[in-house]
Each structure stands twice: as C-alpha cells, then as structure tokens.
C-alpha cells in the first residue's frame, strides 16, 4: 500500500512526465525546417495534417515484412533508418499542423460571441492529448523505431484530423453568420 506522501510523489512524477511529453510534442514542430529532407513548405502557416492514407503507409508493417524477407542486413538497416526519418518528420508535421489549427481557432474565437463551452473544453483537451501523444511518439520512434508505435500513431492521426475538422466547421459557421449578418443589415 502507498501512503499519502507516496501517492503524492507518484502523482507528482506522473504530472512531470506528462508535462515533459507535452513540451516534447510542442517542441517537435520546431525542428521542422532544419531537419526536413525536402523543405517544400517555407511558410509554417501552410502546414496541414498529412492525408491519413500516407500515415498508414509510413507505419506499414507490410513494407517491413517485404524488406526483411530480402534477408539482407544492409537493406533491413536502411529500411529502419529511412522509415524512422520519415516517421519523425510526420510527428513534427502533425504537431506543427495542429498548433497552427489551434492558433487559427484562438483567433477565430476571439471575435466570436457564440462559443460553446463544452466544445471548447473538449477541443483543448484533445489538443493536450495530441501534444502528449506527439511527445511520446517522438521519443518512442527515436528509441524503438516506428513499427512498434503504429497503433498510437494512427490514433494520433485520427485525433489531428478530428481537431482540424472541428476548426473547419467552426470557421464555416462563423463565416455563414457573418455573411447573413451583412445581408440582413
């Protein structure tokens, strides 16, 4: 049994770990321009979440099975290093894209009078969850490689798509209201 001080210590440690992962997730986006293999997007404002079918491809087990069936140490090593680099870029891009979406959302809500409290809280919680996941994925991919985190990565991908969809729906509603208010005035 853990006593009061022990529980506090464990709780504190967990909180510290969560904060560490969250900051790692946010910081993941910062290395984007310097470490990208192909810096096609100079402007961070343009970054959008990666299409889901390609997230499946990056974390594909079938590709690994194909590469390992060749039975060459050199090919297996090349595959691991190549996929690791792409997977880390995917984490950075996902983190950067969602930070951009949240910035846009914050700007849009500042001028809006009809916010739904529960929707906003849910969105912030999902954002925090995604940043934690990005931090955890970043560390896990660096240490163990992308194949072992496929499930978590796909969950993070669906979460990022969901946040982007919520923001898009919010922007569309706000735009419709503005247009109708202009029309009625």
């Amino acid at each position, binding site marked *: 049994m853990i006593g009061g001080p022990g529980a506090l210590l464990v709780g504190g440690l967990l909180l510290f770990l969560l904060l560490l992962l969250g900051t790692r997730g946010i910081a993941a986006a910062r290395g984007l321009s310097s470490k990208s293999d192909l810096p*096609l997007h100079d402007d961070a404002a343009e970054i959008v979440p*990666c299409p889901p079918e*390609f997230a499946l491809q990056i974390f594909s087990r079938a*590709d690994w099975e*194909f*590469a390992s069936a060749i039975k060459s140490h050199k*090919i297996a090593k090349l595959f691991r290093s190549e996929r690791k680099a792409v997977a880390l*870029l995917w984490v950075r891009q996902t983190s950067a894209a969602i930070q951009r979406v949240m910035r846009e959302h914050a700007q849009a809500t500042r001028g809006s009078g009809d916010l739904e409290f529960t929707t906003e809280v849910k969105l912030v919680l999902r954002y925090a969850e995604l940043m934690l996941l990005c931090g955890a994925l970043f560390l896990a991919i660096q240490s163990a490689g992308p194949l072992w985190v496929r499930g978590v990565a796909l969950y993070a991908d669906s979460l990022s798509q969901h946040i982007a969809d919520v923001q898009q729906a919010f922007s569309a509603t706000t735009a419709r209201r503005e247009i109708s208010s202009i029309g009625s005035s």
Partner: protein
Amino acid sequence: MSAAVKLVPVQAAYDDLLQRSLSKISCDLARLIYLASTRDYNTGTYHHDGLASRFRADAASKALEIAHRQVFYTLAAYSLEELVRQLEIYLDGSRERPQDVLRIWQKLEPYRIAVPVEVHPTVACLFLSNVRLAVAIWRHRRAPPPPRP
C-alpha cells in the same frame, strides 16, 4: 469569365493528355518522370507543344500540373513491393543498362526533381525515401552472389 468556363478547357486538355500520352507510357514511375520533364526548372511552369497547340497554353500547363500531382500521389501511396515492381518495369523499358541507371540514381538522386511543388512535404519525403529503398533492393537482388571460399 466564370470558373466553369475556365475549367472546361483544362478538363479537356487533361483528358487529351491521358488518352494521347500518358496511357501509352508503361508505368506510373515513367509517367511521373515524363510529366516532370515537361516542367521548366527555373519557372516551375509546364509546357507541352502538342497539348498547347490543341488547347490554350495555360490550360495545357494546368492539365500537366494536375496530372503530375495525381501520378505523384498514386506512386507515393504504393507499397514498397509495388514500387520495386514499378522500378523494374521502368528499367525494362529503358534503353540504358539498368545497372548504370541505378548507379546514377543512387549517387545523384535525380528522381528528387520529379516531385511536384505543391505536395505535402511528409508525402514527398516518404516517396523519396521509398525510391531510395526500391533502388537499394533492386541493386541487391541483381548483385552477383559473393564468391564462395
């Protein structure tokens, strides 16, 4: 001019491009390289004499750009095994010796310039990484077995 009126020549040019040129090319990898070769290195604009003579030059350019992006996304979504197969078809259709082509591909990575400009950077990175892997796999398969002691 309305958007619908503008879109029609682009769609017609795109259909023409598919029927007359792209359908005659053996695989998606060859299609990607062909389409990338119609792009000016300095300006990034696409040009195709035949297409521009049948349609307006801007419609032809837009059709080439759209086709380039579509073929790129199709290839990027291929599994590694499928991409190795694409590479084999491409090399079979080439007049050069496959070993020579792939030696240059591995050294200079000329396929990097086959990537369209307006594509997702992670997808571009995945594609380039997969081509590097496919080239290494192909060369490994064709390499002579090590001499037995």
